[in-house]
């Protein structure tokens, strides 16, 4: 089981997938993209801030909980911070697993948990 958490201030560059175990049949990737309308108003982008050490430990805990339910072999999590322009990714998650069902279930629950419990905030203004 490999997990990776990254916070970056640069555009997100998804990592190359590692299929070296040769037993991974499914790779699922999610990109969260900044949309042009926020609460009905046109915006140029969003600012993100994180309580980074706590966000990391929360994510690690959530990963372990979810991996116990949905067997997957690898999770990569990248969140961009500071200004993210409209049309660019603020979030990237990839999940590798033997079977697609575990990857899909884990991905859905991970994003739900992220949006409920991981100390990251977005703002229309800095």
């Amino acid at each position, binding site marked *: 089981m490999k997990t990776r958490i990254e916070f970056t201030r640069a555009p997100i560059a998804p990592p190359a997938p590692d299929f070296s175990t040769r037993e991974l049949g499914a790779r699922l990737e999610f990109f969260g993209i900044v949309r042009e309308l926020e609460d009905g108003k046109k915006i140029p982008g969003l600012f*993100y801030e994180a309580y980074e050490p706590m966000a990391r430990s929360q994510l690690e805990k959530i990963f372990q909980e979810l991996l116990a339910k949905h067997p997957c072999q690898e999770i990569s999590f990248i969140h961009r911070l500071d200004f993210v322009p409209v049309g660019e990714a603020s979030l990237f998650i990839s999940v590798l697993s033997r079977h697609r069902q575990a990857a899909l279930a884990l991905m859905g629950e991970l994003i739900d948990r992220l949006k409920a419990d991981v*100390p990251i905030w977005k703002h229309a203004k800095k």
Partner: protein
Amino acid sequence: MPVPITDVKITILTFAQTRTQLGFAEKTIECEPGETPREIFRRLAPQFDPGKIIRVAVNREYADWDQPIGEASELALIPPVSGG
């Protein structure tokens, strides 16, 4: 003979709207181990009310507003998160 209560140094962090509400991002203060987060913030910012929306983290874990902080070294206000 009672052991004298030693004050602990604790770093207070604020994020998002709580940063504006409290007027600082980070501050280090002295607390007693028996103090709870609620008591510390009442002392630090009497006008601030976390209500039911703002959570508190003690040493980077969600914690109870009314649980003494003990030997904790970091206290953070966590308004509703909106990552993703």
